[in-house]
């Protein structure tokens, strides 16, 4: 229908026809997201009750469950997974204090410390773990050797231990990630709450406990749950320093079961199902808290923010944190770099300990060349396709008006909470057993698919947040002055969200290149990326070669962190 107005032809749309198209699109997206997020998990749970080997028709039974609980390693894995997850609470305590020191007290050097935490977050955990092995191996670890020479008593620290795993996790992952998640909450809180408490005569620590903590409580809870879920993600650190000590976690146990000949899929899936159940509870809790947290967040009215001072203590705190990042992050990182140039890892006392031969042999190795190519293809493939898909999904999540919107949000969150090894296992089964997709098994496409799925929650949420910020009045203003939807998108929306798209691209690229747990069950020798090659080399005892790859991946991570800082990028607590 058209009618003439102001001497121009104006088209008028029929409301009902458009609604039908929208509704069909809506259902289509819901089904597609459910297919990629829910179906693999359902397959996983279902197949824990399957007694038939792969490729044979489904045979109902509970053999997998029975065997899983008879194996002492499984019980061992459950026990240690649980015990190791308690680090979340230790990490929270540290992260809360550090965030406060960085944002509120503004201790000297706060921006360097914050940036170091970012680097820790970007670094491939495996390369730093290798660094710790050089330092704290009971026989040839540098620190242990030094202790032996200066101490009259037999003292030493063993990295292959429960405490070792805790330490590497806390210093490298738990505390940095939680701090990065908590600092935005501190930044958003209006300083006047604290200032009025101070004026009432309450000291800085009392203010922290009585005013700041209760105000930030919702964010703290959300970050705790997020940390707890993330801590179950663990794989490569335990694989490298847990197995020698006989410490299994469920991730390394599943990896073990799948590599058995023939693979014990039933047991692996039974064990996975238990963890899915635990994660399911945590996810529900998390979703509830996030919703509650949105109402409770206190945003500062203006940009007014003044750091609170705690006198001389600031220097002490600053010194402590500098020492902590130096020992926890830069020391092991330096060791990996050093180790990659050593004839024998950790052997400083031999003649001419340094050599370039590992670099030469790794770089001239066709396996390395192949893995580098795979990693680059993987990184660019996942980031490029991912940003397009996440953008569509993010926009859709904003525009969705019909039923199932909260279900959609929930489904999009799922891959975030699913540890890479579980995601890999469920997709492995999918690509092995479902007729049409079977064709892709053994190709790089499987890895790209898995990693796009893995990064979907973060990517889609970040892009959604960007569109939300830009959307609304800035877009509406363009419509009102006469621009159509396409012009508005091209001239207003795109230029404004472009920086965020670049950020997501870089983050997804880095996380795909670095990830080990997701691709490890899905990679073929011909499709092995650098990260998995690094694990294979270190498990095979070729620590020097693993170090070379570790240095390359760490270099990439540091460049990424620098670019992100240049882009002035910061996460909100809701984004991760």
């Amino acid at each position, binding site marked *: 229908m058209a009618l003439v107005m102001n001497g121009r032809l104006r088209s008028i749309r029929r409301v009902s026809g458009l609604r039908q198209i929208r509704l069909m699109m809506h259902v289509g997206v819901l089904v597609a997201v459910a297919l990629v997020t829910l179906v693999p998990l359902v397959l996983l749970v279902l197949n824990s009750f399957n007694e038939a080997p792969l490729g044979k028709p489904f045979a109902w039974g509970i053999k997998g469950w029975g065997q899983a609980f008879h194996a002492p390693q499984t019980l061992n894995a459950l026990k240690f997974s649980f015990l190791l997850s308690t680090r979340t609470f230790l990490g929270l305590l540290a992260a809360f204090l550090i965030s406060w020191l960085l944002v509120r007290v503004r201790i000297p050097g706060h921006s360097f410390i914050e940036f170091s935490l970012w680097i820790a977050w970007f670094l491939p955990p495996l390369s730093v773990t290798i660094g710790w092995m050089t330092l704290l191996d009971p026989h040839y670890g540098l620190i242990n050797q030094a202790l032996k020479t200066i101490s009259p008593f037999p003292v030493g620290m063993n990295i292959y231990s429960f405490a070792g795993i805790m330490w590497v996790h806390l210093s490298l992952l738990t505390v940095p990630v939680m701090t990065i998640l908590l600092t935005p909450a501190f930044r958003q809180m209006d300083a006047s709450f604290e200032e009025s408490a101070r004026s009432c005569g309450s000291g800085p620590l009392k203010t922290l406990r009585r005013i700041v903590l209760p105000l930030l409580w919702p964010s703290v809870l959300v970050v705790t749950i997020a940390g707890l879920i993330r801590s179950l993600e663990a794989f490569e650190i335990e694989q490298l320093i847990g197995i020698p000590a006989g410490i299994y976690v469920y991730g390394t146990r599943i990896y073990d079961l799948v590599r058995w000949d023939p693979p014990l899929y039933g047991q692996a899936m039974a064990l996975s199902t238990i963890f899915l159940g635990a994660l399911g509870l945590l996810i529900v809790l998390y979703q509830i808290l996030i919703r509650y947290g949105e109402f409770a967040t206190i945003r500062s009215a203006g940009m007014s923010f003044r750091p609170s001072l705690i006198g001389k203590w600031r220097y002490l705190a600053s010194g402590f944190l500098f020492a902590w990042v130096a020992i926890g992050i830069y020391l092991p990182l330096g060791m990996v770099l050093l180790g990659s140039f050593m004839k024998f890892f950790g052997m400083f006392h031999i003649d001419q300990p340094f050599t370039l031969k590992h670099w030469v042999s790794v770089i001239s190795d066709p396996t390395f060349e192949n893995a580098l190519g795979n990693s680059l293809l993987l990184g660019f493939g996942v980031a490029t396709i991912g940003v397009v898909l996440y953008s569509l999904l993010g926009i859709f999540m904003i525009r969705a008006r019909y039923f199932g919107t909260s279900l959609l949000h929930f489904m999009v969150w799922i891959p975030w909470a699913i540890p890479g090894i579980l995601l890999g296992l469920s997709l492995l089964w999918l690509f092995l057993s479902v007729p049409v997709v079977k064709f892709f098994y053994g190709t790089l496409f499987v890895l790209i698919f898995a990693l796009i799925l893995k990064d979907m929650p973060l990517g889609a949420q970040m892009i959604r947040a960007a569109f939300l910020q830009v959307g609304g009045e800035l877009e509406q203003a363009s419509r*009102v*002055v006469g621009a159509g939807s396409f012009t508005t998108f091209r001239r207003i929306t795109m230029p404004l969200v472009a920086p965020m798209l670049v950020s997501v691209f870089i983050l997804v690229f880095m996380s795909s290149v670095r990830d080990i747990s997701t691709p490890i069950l899905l990679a073929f020798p011909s499709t092995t990326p650098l990260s998995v090659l690094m694990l294979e080399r270190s498990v095979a005892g070729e620590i020097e070669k693993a170090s070379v790859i570790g240095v390359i991946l760490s270099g990439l991570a540091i460049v990424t962190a620098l670019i992100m800082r240049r882009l002035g990028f910061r996460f909100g607590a809701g984004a991760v």
Partner: protein
Amino acid sequence: MKTSAEVLLRVERLYRRYGSAVAVDEVSFEVFQGEFFSLLGPSGCGKSTTLRLLAGLEEPDSGEICLKGDVIVSARDGIFVSAEQRHIGLVFQSYAVWPHMTAFQNVAYPLEVRRWNRQETRRKAEQVLESVGLAGLEDRRPAELSGGQQQRLALARSLVYEPDLLLLDEPLSNVDAKLREQLRIELKKLQQKIGITIVYVTHDQSEAMALSHRLAVMNRGRIEQIGRPEEVYKAPGTFFVQNFVGRLITFEGRLTERSSQRVVELPGGRSIAIRDGLAIANGGQVCVAVRPEDMEIEAGAGEPGAQGISGTVQDVAYVGGRYECAIQAAGSEFVLDMPASLRLAKGQAVTLRLKETTVWPSS
């Protein structure tokens, strides 16, 4: 405003709800060519939603909007002209000037999407920027402009394509008091100069009164009264309108009849005679409303049985150029300007004479 003028905008029984909350409830009004029309009401009364419905940013659940005689929205007939085809201007409360474009680019954008040629775009954009006082700031980005300048930029962007109707959503609420007065005067001058029709949304009654030819007072999604500022102030249709537009002092009392004269008995024994024709039965609780300027203060308690209400001065404050006194009388407490001839002190008894009162059923 001449009623014989041409109707530019006609809104009929517009209705919009979100879930179970009714935001706009059967709103109808007309706006004439060249008129300055305000929607006045407290926050959440539906005035901004009405404006968004006019702009085409929301679809009504029912009702009709006609612009220049053409139906642009009709829920019944499934007609909805999209925002970009309405040729209406809208200045957002947040201004919504695009941060990635310079002032010039912001203003040129509407002309570009209308495919004006380069020279004419430049000429027109610069002319409009100059008319709002932004000449010389063409290359600044919004972040480099002050709040007042951003507001002018948003206005320039809406005026540059000479829309049939300009919608303003609380455009002065984000600037400080002094600037607000200046911008208000400028806005009125501009409207008189170019003769554009404006629908203005505000919660500030003095702003609405000073600017508008006519205004509609809204409450809970409904229009309570439409009229010229004097009409709305002097002959309010409802208690809400009287209370929202201008200052008001109220007394709670009981309606009775005393020697064939209807009076309101107030706490403290005094009573006020009221006009006939009130549709409230005797014995009912009522609220007597008085404008401060309709109340005279006299020193001293006055004799019993005399006209007026007795009260006590609670506090006297110098507010620059004049004194204000807080008075308690007949169960109410309020602040009045102290006449220069009186020298009242704290604790002193006074008599208040009510020249003009309105009686409303007690809520």
